[in-house]
């Protein structure tokens, strides 16, 4: 189609951060909070910015990094959604998580110095790359940065084990949707409309359910008026009811 057809189109509402500049981080950036001007002197801020590269855009299916690659950077998602996954000894894929704009990936690589997982774009995505050695040095001088790093580390561990317990399919899916909704809204995006860039196979794998079960439960939620599903878009009509179902998982 010719260019004129794009005229009058608003940019897609896919979750994306606005761009930062030399003295401001992208609005969703995890470091935005610790780097408020009163806490950090401007030279440190510029220094931190120097560690950051904007990388991308990646297309759906592109790797940001691969398992076994030497670890030297952590990444913050700027736009789009990233899946992390690994393969167990028998070669089976295991989905570790889905990462939204403003969230970090690569943290679980700090210890072995190699990335233990693949990071794959699920839709068109851009990331910020932070050189880790430089970041670690800076963290020594900036307590705020260090604190934020530790926070992120503990959060990341929490994410990975959230669904390890003995929960029903309904509880898992409700918690999955509520969790995503909270993370979107924390980043300043609508909490009641979720775009699921991941396939149902990925959701099923992550929640340790069969793909058919994912669809069956979502259809039941929809029939009961809790959610409305339209292609990859899910809107949450009754968050309180959904939360009630999700509670056993979320209370952990």
């Amino acid at each position, binding site marked *: 189609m010719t260019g004129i057809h794009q*005229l009058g*189109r608003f940019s897609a509402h896919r979750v994306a951060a606005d761009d930062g500049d030399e003295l401001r981080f992208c609005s969703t950036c995890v470091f935005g909070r610790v780097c408020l001007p009163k806490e950090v002197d401007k030279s440190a801020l510029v220094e931190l910015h120097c560690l950051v590269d904007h990388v991308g855009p990646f297309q759906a299916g592109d790797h940001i990094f691969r398992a076994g690659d030497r670890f030297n950077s952590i990444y913050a998602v700027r736009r789009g959604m990233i899946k992390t996954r690994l393969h167990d000894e028998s070669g089976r894929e295991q989905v570790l998580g889905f990462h939204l704009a403003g969230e970090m990936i690569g943290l679980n690589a700090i210890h072995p110095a190699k990335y233990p997982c693949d990071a794959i774009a699920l839709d068109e995505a851009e990331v910020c790359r932070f050189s880790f050695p430089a970041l670690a040095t800076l963290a020594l001088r900036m307590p705020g940065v260090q604190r934020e790093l530790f926070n992120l580390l503990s959060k990341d561990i929490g994410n990975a084990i959230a669904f390890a317990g003995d929960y029903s399919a309904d509880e898992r899916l409700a918690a999955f949707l509520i969790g995503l909704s909270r993370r979107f809204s924390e980043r300043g995006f609508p909490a009641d409309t979720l775009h699921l860039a991941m396939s149902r196979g990925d959701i099923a794998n992550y929640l340790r359910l069969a793909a058919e079960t994912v669809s069956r439960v979502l259809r039941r939620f929809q029939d009961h008026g809790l959610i409305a599903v339209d292609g990859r878009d899910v809107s949450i009509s009754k968050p309180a009811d959904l939360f009630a179902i999700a509670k056993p998982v979320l209370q952990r």
Partner: protein
Amino acid sequence: MLPHRADETGNSASIRLIEVKAYACRREHTARMASAPNSFNANFDSDLIARYDVSGPRYTSYPAAPQFHEHFGAAEFAAAAHASNDDPIPRGLSLYVHVPFCLSPCFYCGCTRIITRDRGKADSYLARLYREIELTASLFDRDRKTSQLHFGGGTPNFLTAWQMSELIESLATNFGVSNAASTEIGIEVDPRSADADYVRGLASVGFNRLSIGVQDFDPEVQLAINRVQSIEETRAVIEAARESGFRSISVDLIYGLPKQHPSSFSRTLDAIIALAPDRVAVYGYAHLPQRFRAQRQIRAEDMPDAKTRLALIGLAVSKLTVAGYRYIGMDHFARMDDELARAQDNGTLQRNFQGYSTHAACDLIGLGMSAISHVGATFSQNARDLSGYYAALDAGNLPIVRGIQLTVDDVIRADLIQQLMCHGRVDIHAFAARHRLDFPVYFAVSLARLRRLAADDLVELSEHHIQVTARGHFLLRNIAMCFDAYLNPANHVPAVLAAESSAILPRYSRTL
């Protein structure tokens, strides 16, 4: 079987029962066509007729079939199928099976069909069809249920009752046909080669919808089109279908046939009304003898002119509406209590290759020679000749020869055209919100064209809605054409719609 389908696909084989998919016709509080005509007011002056009797697509798909290209093949289809399995709740499936054989040639027909009396041809065709069913079914996840199954042609009842039964069984085994009461299993039947026993046989293997070709009961017209079919044979099939529990019976008529006159067509309409089908389709004959060899048997001097064609469709509208049918739009009428009419009331009506449909969005899988599929945001078509179709399957490949991946713009325009075709109305704010666009800017070129139609009282245009008028209901194709990016190069607003359209659209039939 029907000539009207020929114009976009080059063959009517493409027709499927189906609904056009998720992106189109979402629930909106569109009531039925607000000003649907109760009587046809033929206040079309000759100047208006001249301006709007142009060539154009029928919008059973957007983009229309001439936009399909050979760079879209089996691999692209397989990728679309896999992607369609990935949705949180994958769409259901709707299957169309094409049977290309006919015992004798109807002269009006523009379908890709094979005239033969050799019933043995069916066996070699079925052998390939079974292979195609297995190959295709393996691409779709097993928990996706089939809620619609339709047989078209050609003449589907070229197959014997037991061949039909085996075919249904294979489809059920491979695709998992839903046993819900709402599952539709439909077939087009030629009463000249189907008797009451055959129809009862169809019911016993699960068919619940029947569509019967009539075209016209007038003997002179029947001779001119080489399709002599009595009211009695037609009635026998309809009665057998009713007795054996078919839920819906539909009759197809054609206007604009050679030797057709309002007076004789009026008698045909009376006879149809007496047979009391649930739905009636009245298609416009597309006379394209340079493209369809069979049509060269029709003498040009026997063809009714545009004014007579309008009188014929006008007659159909007034007679059928008086008899209790609602004009759904684009050739289709349904009883007030028919689900098509109810779907139009509650905004769930869909436009598709077969006309209109009530089912929620499905992925459509066309099986058989020349059949068209619509999976995700793609269209694709099988080989349109037996040798190509057989060769692909004998080599173990899907027989897809062409198709198209829709762009974002295609999806947006398809939705808009769907709204116009199904509901005669577009709520501009809801549409703009759904597709995240600034409507007047995005559609500036289309709206400029539409304003000319508004001046002729075919649409009402405000900042809130586009509303098709009573007069405009008979020119839905012309209205939709304003939004067709393939007819309207965006940087070029031609002075005369008619002139431009007929100049660049030799593949399409006339709109009137």
